[in-house]
C-alpha cells in the first residue's frame, strides 16, 4: 500500500509539469523576449557589454 501512494503522486505531478510546459508556451515570454532584444540590439548598435555601466557618454567624472 505505501509505495502506491507516491507513485500516484509522481504521476499526477508529471502530468501537471507537462501541462505547465504547454501552458507557459502559449503566453508571450516577456522576459525572454527582452533578453533576446537586448542581445540583438547590442550587436546591431555594437554596444560592448562592459561599457554598459559607463554608457551615456558622461563628459567627465564629477569634480
Amino acid at each position, binding site marked *: 500500500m505505501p509505495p502506491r501512494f507516491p507513485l500516484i503522486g*509522481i504521476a499526477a505531478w508529471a502530468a501537471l*509539469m507537462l501541462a505547465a510546459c504547454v501552458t507557459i508556451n502559449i503566453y*508571450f515570454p516577456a522576459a525572454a523576449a527582452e533578453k533576446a*532584444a*537586448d542581445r*540583438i*540590439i547590442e550587436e546591431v548598435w555594437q554596444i560592448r557589454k562592459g561599457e554598459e555601466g559607463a554608457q551615456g557618454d558622461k563628459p567627465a567624472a564629477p569634480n
Partner: protein
Amino acid sequence: MKRSGFIRWALIWLVLTAADGALAQANLEINTPAIAALKASMQQRHAQLAGFYARGAVGLTRDGGIALRDASAVQLAQRQLANSLVAAENQDRAALYREIARANSHPEWENDIRATFAQRWIGNARSGWYYQNAAGAWVRK
C-alpha cells in the same frame, strides 16, 4: 527496496525534465540564418544612421521603428539618403520582428516582440538621442 530505488530515479528524471522545460522557456530562438542576415544588414546601416541619431534628425518611434523627426537637422543634399535609410531600417526591423516570431513557432507574437523591441531600443539608446514617448511626443534621452 527496489521500488523505492525506482521512485528515486523517477523523481530525479522528473526534476531534470522540469528543469529542461524551464530552460527551453528561458530563451527565445534568435539564431536563424534569416535573423542573422537582418542583424548584419542593420549593423551595417547603423554606421550611417548613428550620425543622424546623434544630431536628433532621426529618432526612435514608440512602435519599434525609426523616423525622420527633424528634417532641418539634415543638409538638403543628405535628405534623400536619410529618408531611404529610415525606410530601409524600418523594413528590416519589421522583418526582424516577424522572423523572431516565426522562428519560435508563434507568428502571433510579432506585435509583442515589436513592443518589446520598442522599449529596448530606447533603453539601449545613447543619451542625446530622441525617442517617442507613449503619447507620441519626441523626448531627448
